[in-house]
């Protein structure tokens, strides 16, 4: 950087470029990071969910939220997976974090009924096995984090070179 500076005009230009970089960097990195996070974090999570035969409703309910750029040198966001059944049971959380063996109680008359030897039998409820926790979001985020960080750093350096060094 300093090898190109030979006159006061060069220094003035450099000052201008650094100031311009300071002004434009937050907006650039927010846009750039949004794309990278989508490609490197969100899409792999959704792919993993499909391979684990997650419901499409859970996959559609998985998104990036609360993305913001902080002056202290970090960009923060939440990977959210939100899908509840009609009765309010958090299915997304159950698949991610697993559930213990629990009792399912019949709510409607037609619920929990089955036909055996042409006779419809009803149940007031029964115990079901819990879900095994998959931790897809947590594991995939941990695995993909270094790749995404590397790309963000690379993008930052390219932007810096383009704006300041030229």
């Amino acid at each position, binding site marked *: 950087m*300093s090898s190109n*500076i030979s*006159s*006061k005009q*060069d*220094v*003035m230009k*450099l*000052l*201008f470029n*650094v*100031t311009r*970089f*300071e*002004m434009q*960097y937050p907006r650039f*990195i927010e846009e750039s*990071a949004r794309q990278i*996070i989508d490609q490197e*974090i969100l899409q792999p999570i959704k792919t993993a969910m499909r391979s684990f035969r997650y419901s499409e409703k859970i996959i559609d*309910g998985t998104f990036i939220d609360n993305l913001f*750029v902080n*002056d*202290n*040198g*970090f*960009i*923060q*966001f*939440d*990977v*959210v*997976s*939100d*899908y509840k059944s009609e009765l309010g049971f*958090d299915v*997304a*959380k159950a698949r*991610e*974090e697993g559930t213990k063996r629990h009792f399912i109680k019949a709510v409607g008359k037609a619920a929990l009924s089955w036909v055996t030897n042409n006779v419809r039998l009803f149940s007031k409820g029964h115990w079901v096995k819990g879900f095994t926790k998959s931790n897809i*979001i*947590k594991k995939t*985020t941990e695995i993909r*984090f270094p790749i*995404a*960080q590397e790309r*963000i*750093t690379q993008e*930052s350096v390219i932007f*810096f070179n383009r704006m300041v060094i030229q």
Partner: protein
Amino acid sequence: MAVVEQVRFSIFSQQEIQELQNDVIEIEDLAERKNIAEEKIQQSKLARRGGIFAPNELDATLPAAITKKQGNALISRVDESKLANSVKSTDKTSAAPFVRSSSFRQIKDDVDLLKEGQKKTKDALSFLTDFQGTAFTKLLGAASNFLPVGFALSVATTVFALIQAQFGAGGIFDTRKRELDSVKSLIGLERETDIIGGDTLFLGNPTLVQGIARNQTSNTENLRDGQRRFVLRSNGY
């Protein structure tokens, strides 16, 4: 409660950019000092010149001792003080604080002003974009307190309403009417494509025929056929 995984990536911090700016300020100082030093060296060289290598005839006529004194006097006191100040700026133990008029700080001040201006503009825009809501009503109410402004606004609103009405059905700016006129002038895309492609011969003289020449018994027959052909072609056959 949904599953929420919080993630943080490292990027350039404000502090890092600030450090970079400080480095550039340092480079600016060095460049300024270099310029001052170069000027001083140049002036010293000029001052030492005499005899046949003097820059002008007046110097050549003067003795070397006088030209040297003259040269020393030529060195500007302003440059001397600049150099002293730039050196002093790095001297941490100096009692008198030296306020450096940095070009960078000037730029920074300009940027701060710009940012402030942008913020004000943004606020004003967010206020005005809600012009169909309460904000614009309040603005109109406030403006109408000043009679000339209120009058101008009411005239402008009336004129705007009049012009807006002309875009409606039957108005001079009614786009549907224009579209109908243009549709009338079209001969159809298929027909036009045939003419451009050469599949259909379209000539000003209808007596001219397309294809192999036939045995013509009379010129009137040819004309009759030509007219028929013209009518058919006009109808798109």
